[in-house]
């Protein structure tokens, strides 16, 4: 059955029930599995932190992986649940192209915050000594290199 909200809109989103059910089920399972993997990684990061000599590089890699998985989740929600993938190309572009601004937005502000931290560590000794993470245990371990922004 064809709905006409307005004569200019040849509205045509309808898909077959069986195909629709398959698609929704697939996406639901996908989102749940990705979330479960993210939780697994979160707990892995937790156990790494608890360990004797937490490897900052490994933690950073896991955090990056979680970010990528989150973007995958966002893609599926927008494309399937919000049906943006079914719209015509011009419409998709008017949404997606402005969002490219985020690439600059995120990079510029994160780099700015990081640079502010480095400047303060260089010129504000009190800030550095009072906030720099101490090693977990009493024995001074090998001097760790502080990772930007992560504790």
């Amino acid at each position, binding site marked *: *059955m064809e*709905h*006409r*909200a*307005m004569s*200019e*809109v*040849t*509205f*045509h989103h*309808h898909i077959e*029930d069986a195909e*629709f059910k398959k698609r*929704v089920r697939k996406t*639901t399972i996908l*989102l749940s599995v990705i*979330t479960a993997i*993210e*939780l697994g*990684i*979160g*707990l892995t990061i*937790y156990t790494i*932190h608890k360990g004797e000599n937490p490897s900052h590089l490994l933690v950073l890699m896991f955090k990056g992986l*979680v*970010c990528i998985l*989150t973007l995958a989740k*966002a893609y599926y*929600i*927008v494309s399937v*649940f*919000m049906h943006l993938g079914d*719209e*015509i190309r*011009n*419409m998709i572009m*008017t*949404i997606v192209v*402005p*969002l490219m*601004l*985020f690439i600059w937005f*995120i990079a510029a*502000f*994160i780099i700015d*915050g*990081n640079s*502010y*931290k480095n400047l303060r*560590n260089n010129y504000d000794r009190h800030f*550095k000594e009072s*906030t*720099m*993470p*101490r090693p*977990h245990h009493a024995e001074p371990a090998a001097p760790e290199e502080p990772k*930007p*922004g*992560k*504790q």
Partner: protein
Amino acid sequence: MANTATAQQTKWWSGGKSPFNLEYGKVMMWYFLMSDAFTFGAFLISYGTIRFSQNFWPDPNVVFNAFPGTGHTNLPLAFVSVMTFILIISSVTMVLAVHAGHNGDKNGVMKWLAWTIVGGLAFLGCQAWEWHHLITGEHITLIDGKLELIGQTTRHNPWGQLVDHNEMLDAIKNTPANVLAEIVHEQKHDSNLAELLKLPKDQLAGMLNTAEMHVREKGPVAFGGYFFGITGFHGFHVFSGVIINIIMLLMTRNNVFQNKGHYLMIEKAGLYWHFVDLVWVFVFLCFYLI
């Protein structure tokens, strides 16, 4: 390929047709959501900037490790994963409501909208519990050389670095008796707080189980403000989404959409609801996972 592209372009832009083949309300909903994405994005990026400007930031697994009804058991990430699944499932029920609308199935729309509302309310309930737990749950914190019991507010939070054992023993000497009494009471639940408060300070200090005490410094001030601000703004979106869904449910029940001949309004409400889910995916990432 090139032929179909040209054919489509003349078809969409030669007048008499909607160039995006979408009704006005839905296009505007998309643009509103895009601007809302920038609002949330700006909040989260500002959080990231502050976080990158600090040498120390609280570990989410230390902050979010409680689950309703389990007391002090350490369960990192457990409760927030429940909240995340609630929101994913309510997003699925919304998809089903929109689909029922395509089929003109009034009862289906009402059924799935009702489940979506239930999911939204469940999420809000979880968030209320979490906030209450963070604000009222007091932790031993080293402030100005003595111990204090504080929860997480926008002014202060107890999520700083762990204090080493000797520093803690020094701090106990400077801590007033009433705080020590509360810490002892927290460690021994069968003790009577009123009687502990009558005891002298030295005796209380002797009763402390210092081997199992975890004392932290105050955490970065910005943590509480960002957490409550951003999850609060998201919670407000969930709340308004629930209100919109309730209005949609009542309109469906009153045959408003059936008389119109289409359920496009449900689609617009659906877009908003999915967006709320989408934002939570990123809030979940920024506050709880990394």
